[in-house]
């Protein structure tokens, strides 16, 4: 059941007011939905700013993390391609998500990666996968119709959905089917005949020297009847026909709603109507995304913590919050492998439908893994002869007592928004933590570090921290 709000109110720009003030919780919300979480400095700066300005800053790119180095990142990308190393490619992309200067683009590229879900498990060509990433990244906030055209001719996609096997007289229907069902229209907005006819338009599409190549001799140049219209359509024509269907804007708006606003419920037709109208006029993705994230609805309780954190968001959120500069494929704590274990291995979605997401992210095994990973990160030394990440953070921010530390970590990871009973339990633990017995061989510094690590870990294992 979709909740029906006044569309005017829902999509109007949010302006803080007495009843609905600009809070740290809202800053965190923006950073989670548009990026991969914030560190303490970003939260503080965001609070001092205002919502619209903060969103503009995120869209325009922020100062990259000190751990980011453009030359290094480019080197990683080129080598993952040259050596055809899928794990390196995943590590490289996660490096960009963690430290890159434009997390909004990375976040939306991840959205498109799930939408046009293509896996290297079948493609077996990292260079093609990286090129597909580049296409999605380039158009992540551009025009959907252009993106859809380019994705149709993308070599990784052509291998993934067998377009390269589609020959005159033997059209392969895979791409035509997914184009309509998963990429542009959704089930119920096309017929089996539309698929059969459209498939003929993609015949002769090949890859030559790593590039899209239209082989005229294998192209079925006959007439095709699609969506009730007949013509000598090419593949590009079919893609254009899809985007011109009213269902296309509906489909994309609905999908973005689940991604940016709430995966707990679908958007109502009344609420969707103004967005669909705007989107159908130019397919401007940035305009659509901005409309949603600048809105009253986005900053309302109907959007707040209404998604379950995907593994990438969970892991990146902790690493960014702890201000770690660690590598993404480290021998002792391999973040890229952790993503795979948690079920979201970049460049390897499980099927053409992408990751199911939502509640499927969590089960007994993944929850336990998430909690252990949180501990491993909190206790990970910053570097040789340096304290653990959690301890380093409180020392940097001059947070002294255990109770102050609980509040600090609650602010950092949950922006202070935790249920009263959880806060009471945490505060109680913090008050008693000095009474605990520790191994005799620990120094005072070890004890202090352990206390900080355990407080940080407790906060990161609160149920609310699993929510996005």
């Amino acid at each position, binding site marked *: 059941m979709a909740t029906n709000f006044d569309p005017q109110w829902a999509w109007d720009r949010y302006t803080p007011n007495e009843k609905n003030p600009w809070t740290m919780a809202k800053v965190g919300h923006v950073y989670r939905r548009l990026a991969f979480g914030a560190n303490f400095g970003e939260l503080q700066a965001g609070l001092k700013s205002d919502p619209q300005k903060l969103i503009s800053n995120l869209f325009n790119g922020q100062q990259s993390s000190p751990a980011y*180095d453009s030359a290094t990142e480019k080197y990683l990308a080129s080598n993952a391609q040259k050596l055809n190393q899928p794990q390196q490619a995943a590590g490289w992309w996660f490096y960009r998500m963690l430290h890159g200067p434009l997390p909004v683009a990375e976040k939306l590229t991840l959205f498109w990666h799930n939408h046009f879900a293509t896996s290297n498990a079948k493609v077996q060509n990292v260079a093609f996968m990286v090129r597909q990433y580049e296409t999605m990244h380039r158009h992540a906030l551009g025009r959907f119709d252009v993106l859809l055209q380019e994705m149709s001719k993308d070599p990784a996609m052509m291998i993934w959905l067998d377009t390269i096997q589609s020959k005159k007289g033997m059209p392969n229907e895979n791409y035509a089917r997914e184009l309509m069902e998963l990429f542009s229209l959704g089930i119920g907005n096309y017929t089996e005949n539309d698929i059969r006819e459209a498939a003929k338009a993609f015949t002769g599409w090949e890859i030559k020297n790593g590039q899209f190549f239209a082989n005229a001799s294998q192209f079925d140049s006959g007439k095709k009847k699609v969506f009730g219209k007949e013509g000598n359509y090419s593949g590009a024509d079919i893609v254009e026909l899809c985007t011109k269907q009213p269902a296309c804007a509906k489909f994309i708006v609905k999908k973005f709603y689940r991604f940016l606003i709430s995966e707990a419920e679908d958007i109502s037709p009344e609420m969707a109507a103004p967005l669909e109208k705007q989107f159908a006029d130019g397919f401007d993705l940035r305009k659509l995304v901005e409309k949603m994230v600048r809105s009253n609805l986005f900053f309302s309780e109907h959007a707040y913590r209404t998604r379950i954190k995907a593994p990438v968001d969970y892991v990146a959120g902790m690493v960014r919050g702890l201000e770690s500069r660690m590598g993404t494929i480290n*021998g002792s704590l391999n973040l890229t492998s952790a993503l795979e274990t948690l079920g979201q291995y970049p460049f390897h979605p499980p099927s053409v439908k992408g990751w199911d997401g939502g509640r499927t992210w969590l089960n007994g095994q993944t929850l336990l893994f998430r909690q252990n990973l949180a501990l*491993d990160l909190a206790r990970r030394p910053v570097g*040789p002869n340096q304290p653990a990440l959690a301890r380093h953070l409180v020392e940097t921010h001059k947070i002294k007592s255990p109770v102050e530390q609980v509040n600090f970590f609650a602010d950092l990871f949950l922006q202070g928004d935790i249920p009263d009973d959880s806060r009471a339990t945490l505060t109680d633990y913090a008050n008693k933590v000095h009474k605990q017995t520790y191994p005799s061989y620990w120094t005072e510094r070890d004890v202090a570090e352990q206390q900080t690590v355990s407080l940080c870990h407790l906060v990161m294992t609160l149920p609310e921290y699993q929510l996005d």
Partner: protein
Amino acid sequence: MQWTRLIGLFVILLGVGSLRAADTNPLRFFPAKDTEIVAVVPHPRALIESIRNHPRGQDALTLPQVREFLDSADLRRVFQILAYYERDLGAKWPELLDQISGDGLAIGTKFGSQNALFLAVMQGRDAKQTKKLIDLVVKLVEEELARNGVKEGVLRRKYQGIEAIELSKDLKIAQIDEALLLSNNDNALKAGIDQHISNKKDAKPANVANTSVQGDVKKLLGGQPLAWLWLNLKPVKELPQAKDVFASPRNDVVQTVLFAGWLDVARRADFIAAGFYREQDDLKFTIRMPAGRLNTAPDVELHLPADPKVGGSLPPFDLPGMIACHSFYLDLDTFYSKKEKIFPAQVANDIANGEKQLSRVLINTSLPKLLAASGVHHRIVAVQPETVPGYKKVPQTRLPAFAFVTTMRDESFAKSMNSIVKAAALAAGNQASLRSWEDTLDDVPVFGYSFPDEGKFPDDPQNLRFNYQPTFGHVNGQYFFASNKGIATSIIKAIKAEGKPKAANANLQTAIVAKGFSDFTNVSPELPLVGMILSQGVPLDVAKMQTAEFYQFLDKLGKINVKTEYTDTEFHLDIIWKLGK
């Protein structure tokens, strides 16, 4: 009668001295009949310091990966515990190690034991310190149990009047004077205590210290090993699965061709001894058995000349960019001509039938003739070439070049081999578009095959085929096959420089050169460089620096030499790591 009193005193001192020596041997706790494997570290401190102070050990500590490993959260805890013991026991770890295990550490076990029951003995020099250590460990364990809400503390029980402490399900300990006994099993610990009681009561207690084990090992290994191991082979040979392996003659042709010599000495030896040594900066690991050339089975003649004067193997090559060279003795003529002696009748028949089939396709020769003309000394060598000569195009990645070199009893071997190679190449060349050529390298006529520079090979986009140019020839009584002209030239020069090489007594020698291996991995420096960036989270320039340091470290690792040697009564397998500069 002063002199008699002096003699009496001397005898008493001698007695005390020998008693002391017996009392400090950790092997006295191991029952002779139940101990089939023993590992001993005579001076644990010396062993640890020899590794810790080793120049490359010191160098390794500067590598970022090692630094990170040593600074991991778990290892930090280990170092914290160590610091705690040092503080509470009032001594630094080297001194502590002497106090609690200065007279040796021994571990013993038995074949076929379920869950690998073991008994370990740390023979200390200071009973009070050992007691303090145990108290400290127990205290820590009890604290940890209490922290975890376990009400029951550490379990203490008396056995034969000696307190046994169960620190965990898999670790039980007991102190007997200066000795600390550890085991993963109650019965194994009890056996150690029982042996201790027996040592006190019996005139000649049946413990390992009273057997010939130490003497045998010392005699066989020699020198002062930092650690040694003794393994009783008698129970191994009684295992059902070992019967076929140690049988003579043996049904398995492959086992015979590959391992006949080793299996034969193991069949005749009662035990295996192994030792680890540091000699200056060289580290040596040796495995030895008390059975040698005398009384060998007929199949050993494959790997070992009947006449020791023939020599075992030629010295390994020392070529520019060498990664490894393996030199060995293998007499294939014996394999065929004495097959009836070496193998059971059915296997010998099968070999004879196989020969008939094979000889049909051999041109102008037969397998027996070819084998009779072949030599017994063989060498395989791999190098990382700086360039690959012979092609206009260069491969995107330089792959190692390799060569096989074998001696000949008769020059007719070269003639026959050339005919065989040319016939085979004629058949394969049509498929692979190979072009044949003849050339002279360093005044030696050679022939070979090349890929056409302009040929189309869609399956080889990186042009890796241009690493190879099969080259054949012979010089100074040795026939060679080389993977390209570059290594063929190096081989020819090396053989000429050797003159008439003298084979060593060792029947197998291998040299592995770290620099060559380092050059090989450095052909694709991207791989370690990317690994460094993604693991350490460092920028490209820092990763380049760290990778360069890693390669410098690799280059300085020097060379590993492996050899097997037979005396009349012994078998030796030595692995020696010689450092580079």
